[in-house]
C-alpha cells in the first residue's frame, strides 16, 4: 500500500517535472510558433539567478520565486528585441538562432561563473509516507506545476490579456483587430515564456544544482513534450507530460532508468507518427 502511494507520487512528480520544464517553451511555441532552443539555458540562467541572489543574502523563496523569473523575463525581452523579432515566420531560422544563443549563453556563463557553483539545499525537509520518505520539496513542485496550469488556464480564459493571447494563437492578425500591436504581444509573450522558464530554473536549482551545461539535460525532453503536445499551450503540455511521464516512471520502476528514458523517447516518436500535428493538433483543438 505504501509502495503504491509512493509509486503514484513518483508518477505525479515525473509528470510535474515534464510540465515544469516544458511550460515556458510551450507558451512561446503555442503563441508565436517559435521554438526557443535556448530554453534549457533560460532554465539554467534562472538557476544561476536564484543561487547568486541567495548567496548574496536574499531570502531563498524570494530568490526562487521573484528574482529568477524577473531576471530571465527581462533577458527574454531583450532577446526578443535583438534576435527573435527579425526572424518571425521562419521557424527553422529561429531554432538555429536560438541554438546559437544557447551555445553563447553556456560559454558566457562558464566564463563568468566557471563550472563550479555551490548549490542550495532543498528547503522544506522531508515527508514520511508509511515506511517511505520523500522530499517535501518534490511534493511542493507537483503543486507548483498544478498551480501554474490552473493559473494559466484562468488567465487565458477570463482576462483581457488572455483574450488577446487566444486571439493571437488562432490568428496573428486578430491581435491587431483587438487594437494591440502584434509586436507588443510577441514581446510580452516571449518575456512571459522566459520568465516561466526562469521561475522553473530557480525552483529546480535545489534539486539538480546548476552548471552551465545543465540546459542540455532539459531541452530535448521539453522540445519533445511540447511538439508531442501540439499547439494548445496548456492542455497539450499537460496531456503530453502525463502520457510521457507515466510511461517513463513505469518503465523505470519495472526495469532501469535507461529503459524508462528510451521508452519515453520511443513513445514520442510513435505518437508523432500517429498524430503528426501533436495530440492537440488532432484532438481538443479548441482547448487552451
Amino acid at each position: 500500500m505504501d509502495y503504491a502511494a509512493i509509486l503514484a507520487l513518483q508518477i505525479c512528480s515525473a509528470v510535474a517535472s515534464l510540465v515544469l520544464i516544458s511550460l515556458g517553451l510551450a507558451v512561446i511555441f503555442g503563441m508565436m510558433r517559435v521554438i526557443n532552443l535556448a530554453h534549457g539555458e533560460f532554465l539554467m540562467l534562472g538557476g544561476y539567478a536564484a543561487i547568486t541572489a541567495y548567496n548574496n543574502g536574499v531570502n531563498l523563496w524570494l530568490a526562487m520565486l521573484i528574482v529568477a523569473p524577473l531576471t530571465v523575463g527581462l533577458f527574454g525581452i531583450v532577446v526578443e528585441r535583438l534576435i527573435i523579432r527579425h526572424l518571425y515566420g521562419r521557424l527553422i531560422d529561429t531554432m538555429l538562432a536560438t541554438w546559437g544563443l544557447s551555445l553563447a549563453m553556456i560559454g558566457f556563463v562558464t566564463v563568468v561563473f566557471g563550472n563550479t557553483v555551490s548549490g542550495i539545499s532543498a528547503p522544506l525537509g522531508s515527508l514520511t509516507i508509511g515506511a517511505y520518505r520523500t522530499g517535501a520539496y518534490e511534493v511542493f513542485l507537483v503543486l507548483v506545476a498544478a498551480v501554474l496550469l490552473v493559473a494559466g488556464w484562468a488567465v487565458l480564459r477570463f482576462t483581457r490579456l488572455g483574450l488577446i493571447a487566444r486571439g493571437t494563437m488562432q490568428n496573428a492578425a486578430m491581435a491587431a483587430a483587438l487594437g494591440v500591436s502584434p509586436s507588443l504581444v510577441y514581446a510580452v509573450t516571449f518575456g512571459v515564456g522566459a520568465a516561466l522558464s526562469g521561475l522553473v530554473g530557480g525552483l529546480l536549482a535545489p534539486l539538480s544544482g546548476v552548471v552551465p551545461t545543465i540546459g542540455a539535460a532539459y531541452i530535448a525532453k521539453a522540445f519533445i513534450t511540447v511538439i508531442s503536445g501540439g499547439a494548445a499551450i496548456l492542455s497539450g503540455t499537460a496531456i503530453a507530460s502525463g502520457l510521457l511521464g507515466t510511461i517513463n516512471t513505469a518503465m523505470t520502476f519495472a526495469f532501469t532508468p535507461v529503459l524508462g528514458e528510451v521508452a519515453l523517447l520511443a513513445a514520442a516518436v510513435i505518437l508523432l507518427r500517429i498524430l503528426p500535428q501533436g495530440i492537440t493538433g488532432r484532438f481538443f483543438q479548441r482547448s487552451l
Partner: protein
Amino acid sequence: MPIRRRRLLTSAAAGLGAASVGPFVIRDLRAQDVLKIAGIHDTSGGLDIYGKQMVATMDLAVSEINAKGGLLGKQVKLINYDPQSNIQFYTQYATEAATKEKVAVVHGGITSASREAIRPLLKRFNTLYFYNTLYEGGVCDRNIFCTGSTPAQTVEKLMSYVMKKWGKKVYTIAADYNYGQITAKWIKKYTQDNGGEVVATDFFPLDVTDFGPTIKKIQAAKPDLILAPLVGAAHISFYRQWAAAGMNKQIPLASTTFGNEVVITSPEEHNGIHVVFGYLEGINTPENKAFVETIHTKYNIPHMTELAAMTYHGVHLWAEGVRKANSIDRMKVIEALESGLTFAGPAGKTTLDAKTHHNILDVYIGEAKDKKFVVLEKFPVQTPADTAAVCDLKKNPNDNKQYVIDVKT
C-alpha cells in the same frame, strides 16, 4: 622572425588545415634551449572542473622544476592543449604534440575514452605518455605510466572499513560506463569477502539528473549502506535529492568518486559521506599544506582531487626519470622509471611499479565535513593488484592493450 615566417609559408602551402595551428601560438625562438612537454586536459566543456586543476598542478610542477634549474640544463616548456571535452580533439592534439612539437612526454587524458584515443597514437609516434587519473585499471602498455589509483587499491580498504562501521547489506548505484561497471564488480567482490551481500546494483548514464524513482527503490530494498561510484555534474543531483528526501540521515553512504562534489554540494547534503582516494586535501603534512595553499591562492582553484595531485606527482616522477636517465630518449627514460623511482609529495610516497607501470601509492579514507575532507585513516603502500593480475610488462614488454579484469565474485 625569419623562422616564423618560413613556418607560415610552409603551412600555407600545406593547404587544408594549415591554419589550424601555426601562427597563433607564440613560440619560444630559442627552440634548442627548451625541453618541451605537453599537457592535454579539458579546460572547457563538461570536464573542465577536473581539467583546470590538472593544468594548474602541472604548471606548478613545471615551474618548480624550472626554478631548480630545469632538466639536463634546459628549461622545461609546457604546451597546454584544451580538447574541449571532445575526443576528436584529443586525437588531433596528441598527433600535433608528438609529431610537430616533438615533445618529450605527454601528460593528460581524463576519461578512459580519451586515454584510449591517444594511447595508440603516442605509441606509434614513440612519445612517452603519463595518464594521471584514477580509473578502472587494466591498461598494459610499456609506453604509458598510470599514476592514478585503481579499484583494487581503494575499494578493498573502503569496503572493509564501512562494512565494519555500518553493516552488511550494500546497495550500489554506479555510473553506467566502464569505470562504474568494473568498480561495481569490485564492490560486489569485497562485499562478499567481508561476509556481506549486494542487494541491488543500478547503473545510470552520465546525463541522468532525476533520481526520484531510484531513491524510492532503495528505500524498498532497505540496505545498511549505499555505495555510490557516480560520476559527473549530472549525478550530483543524486546527493541533493537523497538529502532532500531526508535519506542521508537514514542510510549512510560511501563513494569512490565523490571528490569535487564536496565544493558544489552543501554541508547538509554531504556531511558524513565516506570516500577513498589516493589523495585528499585534508592530508595533514607540511608538504601538502603548502601545496594546497599555493594551488588555492596562486591558481585560484577552490578544491583539488586525486587527479590534480597525481598530475603533480606524475610530472615530478617523469622529471626524476629524466634526471636518472640523463636523457630524454624515450626508452632510456622508461628504463629509468622502471627502476623503482619514487617521488614523495603531497599525496605521500608514490613509486612506479615496473611490472604494471602503475603507481604504488598511499590510500586515504576520508569523510566529507563542511566542504572539506577529513582523513579518517591512511593505508600506506597499496599495490595495483588488479592490473598486476593481468599485466606483467617485465615478461611481456610488447603487450599493448587494456585488459578487462575478470573479477571473481
